[in-house]
């Protein structure tokens, strides 16, 4: 059943791999960029795929947290799509960098040389949020997957979904802040966080609907939500138009008009057409992201080229291949013994505790992890503020706060799961885990050591500095005969044999400037020999300083 999608995925992946390879080799010049359109297709794709990742978490974690019953298979598929989208999304910020090997410099931690990333930058918040999102989503997926058979993990699922819930929204908020903090007119908008989140959930729902179609499964709630969100997106697009005058017919048509077809019964009954509508939604949002990232007023260079198209195809191929391969490999645990209905544990829980306080059950389990997470985050913030190396940087809460939640959630998740996982893992897996921790330690050590200390090729060497004594000696040896020991000219000698040299007053020295004076000494002038063959530049510079001293500087 899944062979066809896998074949399609592999074909697309191979087609797109050329474009990906060219982009890696040539760097940012390969795709649609120029001196004013500095960001391009990779960033647009990044935002799109991160958005697509969100619906997965929305459906599995958020619905779970809020107690909406969805069958296990739907939530597992949604979570799998999150993970695959995240893998695809993570490749693009790396591709976008001009010097990919320096990517580790955005990690907000101190290295042995005292280098610290600039935590005022939204890209640093981005890195942390997405890295933590990937790690916690993986842990959530594995926990959920294994929880059917293993008792200790069952009670971890719901608390973890409560941790994942704010993290998801935080991630896309931080992505929106990448744009909203700038001076680029099209990227400005204090409403961007919610706008991006709505767009993300909207496109993500469309993706999950398509993936469920591939399972011959329909969840009406998701389709209804998608339709309702199309109205909300239309409102946001109206606001963009009111504020900035930006309007794209294709985006609004594909994203707000086409989904309204779902009102017609014949369309609603035809699953293929619904899939087309979902594709139209994703297309609309992809276009919207692309238009946002490449503001039209700046585009002067080449247009959307084959490399850009190839990157889109690559991302699609990678996702499809990854998703369906994993779907096949994980078929047993995903579908479980009971294929059809019910997160029975959720409903049972609801029935068993009608009078106890609202969040208390999950809260009980989360108390310690949250406390530990909060303390670690507080320590980190205090340390980061104290260790910032540059006195010219002034940090405020607004600069640091976006880093806090990801760190808190990461520590809390690890604290929550550590004990249960250790109990549940097979001995072999435990060894693997220990080895992985060793590898992680090694990476931290490499980060701490920092990059290579070798000088850059073509680095500049520093010449020996001039000092007062030698300068005085050089002056008296070479210059004093015409210019005089005191900087005023040697009258008798000069008037008899040479034209009068220039006055060396402080104003004149200032107006001529250091470099033209050095040039005169080295290259000569009318009536003055060049001394470049007898003096180094540093000596010449020392002489200029000596001239200033003679002219009265410092008196």
């Amino acid at each position, binding site marked *: 059943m899944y062979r066809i999608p896998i074949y399609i995925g592999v074909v697309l992946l191979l087609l797109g791999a050329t474009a990906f390879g060219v982009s890696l080799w040539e760097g940012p010049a390969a795709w649609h960029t120029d001196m004013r359109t500095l960001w391009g297709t990779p960033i647009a794709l990044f935002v799109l795929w991160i958005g697509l990742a969100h619906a997965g978490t929305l459906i599995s974690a958020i619905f779970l947290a*809020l107690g909406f019953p969805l069958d296990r298979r739907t939530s597992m598929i949604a979570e799998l799509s999150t993970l695959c989208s995240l893998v695809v999304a993570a490749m693009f910020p790396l591709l976008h960098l001009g010097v990919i090997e320096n990517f580790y410099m955005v990690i907000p931690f101190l290295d042995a040389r005292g280098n610290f990333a600039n935590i005022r930058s939204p890209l640093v918040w981005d890195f942390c949020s997405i890295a933590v999102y990937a790690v916690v989503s993986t842990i959530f997926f594995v926990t959920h997957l294994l929880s059917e058979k293993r008792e200790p993990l069952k009670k971890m699922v719901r608390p973890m979904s409560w941790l994942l819930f*704010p993290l998801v*929204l935080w991630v896309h*908020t931080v992505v*929106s*802040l990448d744009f*909203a*903090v*700038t*001076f680029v007119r099209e990227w*400005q*908008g*204090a*409403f*961007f*966080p*919610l706008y991006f989140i709505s767009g993300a959930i909207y496109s993500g729902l469309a993706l999950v609907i398509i993936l469920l179609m591939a399972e011959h499964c329909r969840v009406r*709630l998701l389709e*209804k*939500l998608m*339709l*309702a*969100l199309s*109205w*909300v997106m*239309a*409102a*946001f697009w*109206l*606001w963009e138009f*009111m*504020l900035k005058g930006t309007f794209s017919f294709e985006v609004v048509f594909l994203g707000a008009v086409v989904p309204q077809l779902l009102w017609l019964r014949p369309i609603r009954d035809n699953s293929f057409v619904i899939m087309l509508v979902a594709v139209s939604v994703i297309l609309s949002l992809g276009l919207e992201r692309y238009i946002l990232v490449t503001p039209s007023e700046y585009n002067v260079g080449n247009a959307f080229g084959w490399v850009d198209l190839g990157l889109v195809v690559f991302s699609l191929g990678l996702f499809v291949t990854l998703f369906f391969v994993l779907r096949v490999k994980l078929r047993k645990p995903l579908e479980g013994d009971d294929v059809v209905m019910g997160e029975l544990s959720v409903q049972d829980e609801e029935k068993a505790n009608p009078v106890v*306080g*609202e*969040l208390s059950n999950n809260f009980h389990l989360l108390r310690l992890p949250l406390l530990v997470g909060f303390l670690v985050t507080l320590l980190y913030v205090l340390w980061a503020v104290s260790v910032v190396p540059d006195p010219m940087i002034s940090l*405020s*809460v*607004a600069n640091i*706060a*976006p880093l806090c939640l990801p760190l808190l959630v990461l520590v809390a998740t690890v604290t929550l799961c550590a004990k249960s996982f250790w109990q549940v893992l097979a001995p072999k897996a435990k060894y693997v885990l220990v080895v992985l921790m060793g590898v992680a330690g090694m990476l931290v050590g490499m980060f701490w050591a920092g990059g290579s200390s070798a000088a850059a090729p073509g680095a500049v060497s520093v010449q020996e500095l001039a000092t007062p004594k030698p300068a005085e000696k050089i002056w008296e040896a070479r210059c004093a005969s015409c210019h005089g020991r005191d900087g005023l000219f040697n009258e008798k000698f000069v008037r008899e044999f040479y034209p009068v040299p220039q006055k060396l007053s402080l104003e004149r020295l200032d107006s001529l400037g250091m470099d033209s004076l050095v040039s005169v000494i080295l290259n000569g002038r009318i009536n003055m020999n060049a001394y470049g063959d007898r003096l180094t530049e540093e000596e010449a510079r020392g002489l200029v300083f000596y001239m200033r001293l003679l002219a009265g500087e410092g008196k």
Partner: protein
Amino acid sequence: MDAVLNSLCCLMALGSSMFLWRTPRSVFKEGGLITLYLVLFMTFSYLTMEGSDATLEYLPLRMLALCICFSVTSIRSHKTRYLVMAQILWLWIEFFGGVSLVYRGLDMPWTRVIAIGSCAAGSVFMNHISREMEFILMVYWIAIWMFF
């Protein structure tokens, strides 16, 4: 934003909140109402505020957040949960909108953010919300709008 306009915003939010979450609930009804309110608030903001004032950008969303906070007080089951979520939505809009404006040179409205945050944190511990408590909350929210 002067007090008259702020109170107008509160009135609009209060009025529109009466229609949300009424039984029978349907995704379409709630989604449609929220969209309608968004368009209404957006038109209102556009017509009443200066284009050059950057805080205009998130005013309709702030009004929507206030509307949702008001409306949530009418929900019967799991009220605390929804109350906390609504206030966090409002906090989210204020805080992250504020961060983006800080980078463009404006100040972050700290008193507002802290007021909403502390109210949200306090609501977590409310087990049983009486009608008087609801009323106090609503007055507090209106006070945040009028004075901060």
